[in-house]
């Protein structure tokens, strides 16, 4: 269902015509078109927008944690079309119990590191990602720091005695 504010947005209208089930809502606050996409069809939507609507660039992918709301996570795709000089934002809601969404690395290779970053910092897994490992935090890190229920200074006050088994940490 195409939102009222985006009835004149050519890419949104074309997307709605070709994948009518995909759009679940949206808005254009601050002049920035945003479409809510059902998570199941994110790859199809991205492929359509890249191939048919010239969104050749994926600027970034990020996430927002709305803890304790459900669905908890919002995965945000920032698309950019160089030809029309326009930007489009896609959003998918992912629940905590599932914490999984399809990867768009097959559409833009740029998604690779951004999805790894989301996996690392939010704990959302990306299906069919070629190399889903932590990227910023150490490989043995426990927890996902950008989640809202993760304390700002971590779970421990000090990390300096980690190597010394005689010290309580």
């Amino acid at each position, binding site marked *: 269902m195409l939102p009222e504010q985006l009835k004149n947005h050519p890419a949104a209208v074309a997307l709605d015509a070709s994948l009518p089930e995909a759009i679940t809502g949206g808005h254009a*606050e*601050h002049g*920035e078109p*945003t479409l809510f996409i059902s998570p199941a069809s994110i790859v199809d939507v991205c492929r359509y927008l890249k191939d048919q609507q010239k969104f*050749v*660039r*994926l*600027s*970034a992918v*990020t996430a*927002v*944690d709305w803890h304790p709301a459900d669905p908890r996570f919002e995965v*945000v795709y*920032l698309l950019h079309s*160089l030809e029309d*000089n326009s*930007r489009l*934002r896609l959003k998918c809601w992912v629940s905590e119990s599932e914490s999984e969404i399809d990867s768009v690395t097959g559409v*833009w*290779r*740029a998604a*690779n*590191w951004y999805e790894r970053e989301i996996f690392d910092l939010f704990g959302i897994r990306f299906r069919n990602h070629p190399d889903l490992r*932590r*990227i*910023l*935090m*150490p490989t043995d890190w426990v927890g996902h*720091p*950008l989640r809202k229920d*993760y304390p*700002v200074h971590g779970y421990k006050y000090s990390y300096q005695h980690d190597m010394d088994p005689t010290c309580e940490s």
Partner: protein
Amino acid sequence: MRELTLNTDTITAVDAEHSVTAPPETSSRRMTLNMGPQHPSTHGVLRVVLELDGETIVMAVPDIGFLHTGIEKECEVKTWQQAVTLTDRVDYLSNLSNNLVYALAVEKLIGDIEIPPRAQWTRVMMAELQRLNSHLVWLGTHALDIGAMTVFFYCFREREDILRIFEMFSGQRMMTSYIRIGGLALEPPRGWQQVVGKFINAFPGKVDEYEELLDNNPIWKRRTQGVGFASLEDLLDLGVTGPMIRAAGMKWDIRKSEPYSSYEQFDFDIASRTENDVYARYRVRLEEMRQSARIIKQALEGMPEGAWQANAPKIVLPEREKMKTQMEALIYHFKIVTEGFRVPAGEAYQAVESPRGEIGYYVVSDGTSKPYRVFMRTPSFGNLQALPALLEGRLLADSIASLGSMDFVLGDVDR
């Protein structure tokens, strides 16, 4: 305390255990080489695991995260204005671009706030000085990596002048935090026109100097021309922005395509080349320095008069004098300092052209006095993803030139 004794027997034993044994006949010729994290040419702590077949790089796997400081997380516990100081620390060479993009994103969320022309022009001028600063450091260190040492000293000489200008404006050389939500941190100091004017009149000649030093150097040319090529389609697909994409023939500059902070009033050209190699990236950045100098000159000559902060008493701190004499100003001051101002719930994305490419801040507010989420789309992170495309299949000796031509700052990558 344990005594240290030199036991030659043990040393020999340990030595033997770790000694490199000749590979058996059947093993492949491949070798894994660890570049970094403490490599002088990675300009920060970047580790690249290279798999070599003789002199050729077969596979390159960047390993990042050594400088991750959790700036995005930290922003969530600061008030909106306090978070400006954190944006400085993302990228030590483009702190003003980071200040600017954050301020613009939050101002977009606030909505009814109008930045006076003088503040906008000063923002542009400072961002362009910052671009010169960044490109100078890049040129100097890139040339140093390749072996041309003299350029480094010349570049840092001019950079010092720019840092003095920053200090004059903001009191700080590096972490300026000069661009704030609602305007500037301080009024531009008295006599800045002379200082900036003196610098900017001499600067184009200095760029000619660098050009002469490098372009008449056959070693420089042979080490950069034809090195580090990757197709434009690959670069776009991998999320590369900035001078790298312009050196590949794409005339795309956010200052022109999505003008912000009154860039549309300035006259400048987009530098671009088509060769798409290390040399082309050098030429593009050199040309950008000349264009930045043009912008700064225009800003110097046409700087508007008037206020340097928005007329928004709930957001901008009152003048000291007013705060001491007016009840209302005192209340606003108290509210802003203790609680911070509230930003209407919503989200905004703002992109600016930093020296390295597209910086985009995606800012989410839940209506309180602290950001709910600040996502930094940093250019270095996006660009570094293309590193394997630049290195794989090429010679190891060219890797430093390719790496340097990307101009990344590791703080910007890891945040």
